[in-house]
Structure formats: C-alpha cells, structure tokens
C-alpha cells in the first residue's frame, strides 16, 4: 500500500544522515561549488528528505516527484557557485529552488488538463487538513501548526494553496472567489505573520 510506504518514509531522514560533525549546508555548498563529489553526497543526505517531501507534496505523483527531485539535486550541483551566503541560508536557497521546480512542473502543459478539473473540484480546506495530518510531534512542527492556526482563514488558505499546491495567485483568486489584489496582500500579510510567529530571519 503506497500510503503506508509514504508514512514510513516520513521523517526517516535522520537514520540516513552522514554529515561530518559541525559541517553546515553552507560549508557543503561551498565545497560542492568546487566540484567536491563526496561533499555533494553529504549535502544530499542532509537535504534529500526536505526536498523530496516538498516536491512530493506539491506534485502528488510519485513518478513525477522522483523526476523533479533528481532535477533539483542536479541543479544544486550545477549552480552551487551561485549561492550567496550573504543573502540567506543554504537550505532556503535549495528549498526555494525545489519549490520553483515543482511548481513549474505542476503548471507545465502535461499537467494542464487535469489541473482544470482539480481547480473545479477543489475544496479549499484540503491542504490544511493534510498538513495537520502529516505533522509529527517535533517541536518546530507543533510551532508551525500553531502559527498556521494564528492566520486568518483567507491568509492561511492563500498561503497553503500557493505553497503546497503550486497555484498561481490568479488561480488562488479564482478558487477563493476573491479579487486579485486581495490575494496579493493576503499572501504577503500571511507570510509576514508567519515570519514573526516562527521567528524567521533571512
């Protein structure tokens, strides 16, 4: 049963991590930028669970997720030299890249057909329910859940539809039947509130 397999794989990352003591994703990216393949292996072990979790969540299709996941990891290898530590954390850089790739795949022509059906059939409370279902008892995750709960419904739905389902903001506007300008501001307000609640710095 695929769902059980998924559940078992959730959070199994710690068992496979082989990072050297004190080595950060930033250190590893700097080595990877110089063609260090063993360092890439360690970066893979550090980031694969986060990247695959996000890609799988956005795409919902195992085969497509595996493809996009591999594209993302190779993009990390190819473009490691462009990472600028003064502009944010390495994991943010990698995850932003992963999210963009996943979203681009969702929006690609192949996905177009059943996407229209998805928009039509969409019930907007789905993403939040799924997030709640998947969270474990880790402290950060309880915090994420608490912070998500502190948003207004419209803020939360806008953020979750865009982030986890890869909908563009005009699509979110259609789904939620709210004006475009409202979606723009709600996404921003929502993220700002989350930022402050989670205590995130760049």
């Amino acid at each position, binding site marked *: 049963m695929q769902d059980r397999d998924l559940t078992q*794989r959730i959070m199994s990352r710690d068992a496979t991590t082989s990072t050297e003591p004190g080595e950060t994703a930033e250190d590893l990216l700097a080595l990877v930028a110089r063609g260090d393949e063993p360092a890439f292996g360690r970066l893979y072990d550090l980031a694969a669970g986060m990247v695959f979790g996000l890609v799988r969540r956005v795409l919902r299709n195992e085969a497509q997720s595996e493809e996009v996941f591999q594209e993302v990891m190779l993009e990390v290898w190819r473009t490691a030299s462009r990472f600028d530590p003064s502009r944010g954390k390495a*994991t943010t850089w990698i995850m932003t890249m992963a999210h963009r790739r996943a979203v681009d795949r969702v929006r690609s022509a192949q996905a177009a057909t059943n996407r229209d059906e998805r928009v039509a059939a969409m019930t907007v409370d789905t993403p939040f329910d799924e997030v709640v279902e998947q969270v474990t008892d880790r402290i950060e995750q309880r915090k994420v859940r608490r912070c998500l709960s502190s948003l207004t419904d419209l803020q939360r739905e806008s953020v979750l539809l865009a982030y986890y389902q890869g909908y563009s903001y005009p699509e979110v506007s259609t789904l939620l039947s709210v004006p475009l300008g409202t979606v723009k501001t709600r996404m921003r307000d929502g*993220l700002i509130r989350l930022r402050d609640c989670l205590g995130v710095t760049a």
Partner: protein
Amino acid sequence: MSVSSDLHLLTGVYAMNALPEDERAEFEEHLADCDSCAQEVAELQATSVGLNLATELAPPSHLRSQVLAKLATTPQSPLETTATVTVLASRSPKKWLMRASILTTAAAVLGAVVLGVQGVQDWNELDALRQSAAGYSQVSDLLNAPDAKLVSDSASAGGKGTVVVSPSRGKAVFLSSGLPQLPSDRTYQLWMVGPDGPRSAGLLRDEPVVAEGLADAQKLALTIEPSGGSSSPTLPLVLTVSLV
C-alpha cells in the same frame, strides 16, 4: 497606488513562486533595484521553508546512486568571483571536460598573444609564434600535473593575467591579455613574490612567461620597468595573481 508600491506587495506572492511567468520576470527586474524588497523576499522565502518542516519525506533510496552517477556528466557553473581557481586533480569525465575547457581558454589567450605580434614582419614574429607554440606545449604539459590550477585576475588599468600553476612542480605559466600598450622604453616584468621578497620571473615580451622554481612564492606580480628589466620591482604593481 504607485507602480512600485504595488510591486512591493508582490513579495509574498513571489516568495511562494505564485507569480505567473511574465509577472515573475517583471518582479525580478524590480527586485534587482529594491533592497528592502530583496530583504523581505529573503525573509519570506525562509518563512515558506519553515512551513515545510512539516513534510520531510525520504526519497526512495535507489535515487541517491542515480543522482550521484550523473554528477560526472553534469557540468557546473563557474565560480563567479574576480579571482577564479579551478583544481584539476581528478580523472573523472567531468574534470576532463573542465580540463578541455581550460585548454581552450589557454588557447584563446595564446591566440590573443599571437594576434598581438602579427604586425611585426620579420624574425621577431616568427620567434614570437615559436615562443607561443612552446608556451602552449608548456601549458598543456603543466595541466597534466595532478595539482594543476588555473588562476586569473584582472588588472586595475585594464587587461587580465591568467596563470596555470602546479605547486608540486614549482612551476607556473603566465599569460596576459588586454594589458595597456607601453612606450618602447618600458616593459612589463613578472615577479614571484614570497616571504623572502620578490624574484624576477622574466619579461613579458617573451610571453608566455614560464616561472620555474616557485618554491614558496605566494603570488605572481606584474610591474612596469625600463626596457631591459630591473633587479627589483618598481611600484605600483600592475596586477597580482595569487597562487595559493
């Protein structure tokens, strides 16, 4: 509402990759000129990533070896700094490609050197061409050293110096391109600079200069000297290339 404050509201949408393609490009243009937007985008991207802590999922284990196997044939973007260093030790296909591209770079620089002497219609021209050919074989020979590196840096007055160096052989080949033309009574001179002070590596009119016996030299430096060269460098340094 002004256009720019309207664009500023898109930070959240952009951080979640929720802009349609055309608007994404427009916003990225705006982002390049708006420090406060860039700061907010960075924070909101980090926030989005924070959300994702809820959904870590290990990929199927066979993907690891599949991805690692593709590294050798996946070229990397070069490091984008003014001084670039590429280590050429491994024999993997990827490194081989890199080596080939460095040879191409070296050939291009040599090409520039050859073009520079084309106006001279006598033995000098032939000599220069011979020197370049000899230099080229020196470069390709040096590239075979297991610790060979390609290092380059730009001169403040324009032009560039490119060095192939092998510490284990104590040897470097220096090639310049685009340096300002000097009056006939002046010449460029190359120096090996180490803890014991500078030692001459030769005059640039015999380019490419092969610097042998590098010992503990930390860098190569270029100066402008009287046409016969000097026994010690005349400041300022036109260009320095770090070897370490």
